[in-house]
């Protein structure tokens, strides 16, 4: 459990770490649980969707696409069943927020899901949870059965003629199952090879080729709060186009890593690292930050970011000035992704960090598209060789050329996720990559940790 910061505004995690609170339904009911389900059921399904659209809530899984808009794309005229899937595969390195919700406050997710199912007209919903969350799956199953007993889930919810069953489905350790079409393939009992879009937009051709909505855990929890506050009121939290709170997950070399929930844009990356997370270890200085899970492009501590925001205002930021919302890291050429902030100090061997990330993507590529399958393996091999005494000056350019041949040439965004780290690390720390060729046992930093 991470220490709560006094400046946080906890909405999703309001009760999660309260010692008097447990993950049982009685606790949830005491704090107004399932009241918003009742409120939603008194509305028309379209009205619920309208509130979500008005709230401006953007997907918390990584892409940041407006959830209300995603729902709008749903093909309601096909006559086929509609499915709702909660993406609980949480597997982007650096991200550990959905775990806190599911283990500590599972009913919030179930309420959010039942409201969402009602809004989109789904009579079957799934929670696709990563298999490493053994206890998480048990907690969710118990919570679903508690909710069913009280009529909040399953048949004839709240005595109405609306029914929605909810099934917890466990993955089996593959990162690609977090990609929504890969997840759907996996849920169909197949290898999770992602599908090509178009035509396979889940909202039209999803699970069993039926219209399907896939939303992240945190996004679905937000739906419950949107109904409580109303879409317009929710949209006042945070900033325009960056509404609501976000749970930022800070890991790596800070004094107090952990999960912290703030209104979007309420603080900068610098305040997060140096104030909320207690800064770096004594005597260390900042070298690099990955702001949105390991797929996000790395930011260099001494970089300047300038340009014009969407609303026309000019900005000129150092790394510490980047606002923590969706658009801030995006304007700085990276992304807020899944909210996983990975901090590296000056003891980090940047080539080793790169090799570590490359090993991850090489391991997790599904192998469907040649550029990604082969490219991710070559990037791993090259960086591993560089870290084993075989670095060459031309390796930096070689890595860039491999990455360039992956980006934009794959069925799903995994190609970009694998290419962006290499492109940003090598471009921004080119000297580190070139100097690796002249590294010897004598001039190696003894403080630097082994990362590969």
């Amino acid at each position, binding site marked *: 459990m*991470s220490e709560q910061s006094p400046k946080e505004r906890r909405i999703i995690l309001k009760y999660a770490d309260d*010692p*008097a*609170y*447990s*993950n*049982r339904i*009685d*606790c949830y009911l005491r704090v107004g649980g399932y009241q918003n389900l009742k409120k939603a059921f008194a509305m028309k399904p379209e009205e619920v969707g309208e509130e979500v659209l008005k709230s401006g809530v953007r997907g918390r899984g990584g892409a940041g696409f407006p959830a209300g808009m995603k729902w709008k794309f749903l093909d309601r005229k096909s006559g086929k069943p509609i499915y709702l899937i909660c993406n609980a595969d*949480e*597997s*982007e*390195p*650096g991200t550990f927020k*959905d*775990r806190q919700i599911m*283990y*500590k406050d599972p009913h919030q997710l179930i309420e959010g899901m039942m409201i969402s199912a009602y809004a989109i007209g789904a009579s*079957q919903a799934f929670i696709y949870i*990563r*298999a*490493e*969350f053994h*206890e998480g799956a048990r*907690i969710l199953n118990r919570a679903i059965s508690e909710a069913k007993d009280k009529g909040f889930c399953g048949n004839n919810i709240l005595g109405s003629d609306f029914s929605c069953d909810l*099934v917890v*489905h*466990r*993955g*089996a350790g*593959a990162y690609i199952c977090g990609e929504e079409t890969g997840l759907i393939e*996996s*849920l*169909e*009992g*197949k*290898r*999770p090879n992602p599908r090509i879009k178009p035509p396979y937009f889940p909202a039209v051709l999803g699970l*069993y080729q039926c219209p399907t909505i896939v939303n992240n855990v945190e996004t679905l929890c937000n739906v419950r709060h949107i109904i409580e506050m109303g879409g317009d009121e929710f949209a006042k939290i945070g900033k325009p186009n960056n509404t609501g709170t976000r749970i930022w*997950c*800070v*890991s790596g*070399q800070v004094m107090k*890593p*952990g*999960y912290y929930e703030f209104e979007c844009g309420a603080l900068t990356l610098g305040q997060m690292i140096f104030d909320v997370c207690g800064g770096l270890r004594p005597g260390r200085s900042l070298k690099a930050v990955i702001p949105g899970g*390991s797929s996000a492009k790395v930011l260099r501590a001494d970089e300047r970011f300038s340009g014009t925001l969407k609303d026309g205002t000019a900005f000129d930021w150092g790394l510490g000035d980047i606002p923590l919302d969706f658009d801030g890291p995006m304007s700085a050429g990276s992304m807020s992704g899944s909210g996983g902030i*990975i901090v*590296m100090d000056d003891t*980090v061997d940047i080539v080793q960090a790169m090799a*570590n*990330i490359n090993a*991850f993507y090489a*391991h*997790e590529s*599904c192998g469907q598209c040649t550029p990604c399958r082969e490219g991710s393996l070559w990037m791993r091999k090259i960086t591993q060789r560089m870290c084993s005494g075989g670095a060459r000056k031309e390796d930096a350019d070689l890595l860039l050329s491999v990455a360039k041949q992956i980006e934009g040439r794959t069925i799903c965004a995994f190609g970009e996720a694998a290419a962006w780290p290499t492109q940003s690390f090598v471009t921004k720390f080119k000297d580190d990559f070139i100097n690796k060729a002249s590294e010897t046992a004598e001039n190696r930093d003894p403080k630097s*940790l*082994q*990362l*590969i």
Partner: protein
Amino acid sequence: MENLLKLSAETLAKIDEVVPKYPQKRSAALMVIHLVQDELGAVDDTACEWIAKRLELQPINIKELITFYPMLRENPWGRKHVRVCRTLPCALRGSYGTCKTFEKMLGVKEGHVREDGEYSLEFMECLADCGQGPVVIVDEKTYENIEGERATKFAELLLDGKLDGVEEFKSYEESLNQQIPKQ
């Protein structure tokens, strides 16, 4: 269906319960594989054939899952299976050192099962608890900040079978409040 795999009545009942939950039988594949693997430790060819028959599929439809998903196994892990997170956030807190300590103390190489079948060690990709790395999972329990001397102490307790109940190594799961509140 003939109980070729000698599965317990409990597992068979769980399988019968899980299959009808899905609109299509094939969707239950992963869940059935998990149930079989939880009992047998691995899913060999006979098990593949049995599961395939149960779900009205071809054995290859199950085999291709076993060979794809990292957590599915054709050969069992050790009686105690130790997973250490390898990915960057944990590595930045020293997980490579933790893995080495465990290799030495448990007497097993990463990715392998010790000869006596007692321990196996796996260096895994991100376990989604990056704030408290290095993260270690033993069987189904998640332990946090297992690094340096703590890793040595952890391995000692594990080897002595005395890990349970040690306050400083309380698992993430055991730290949760799961009680029904008193009125």
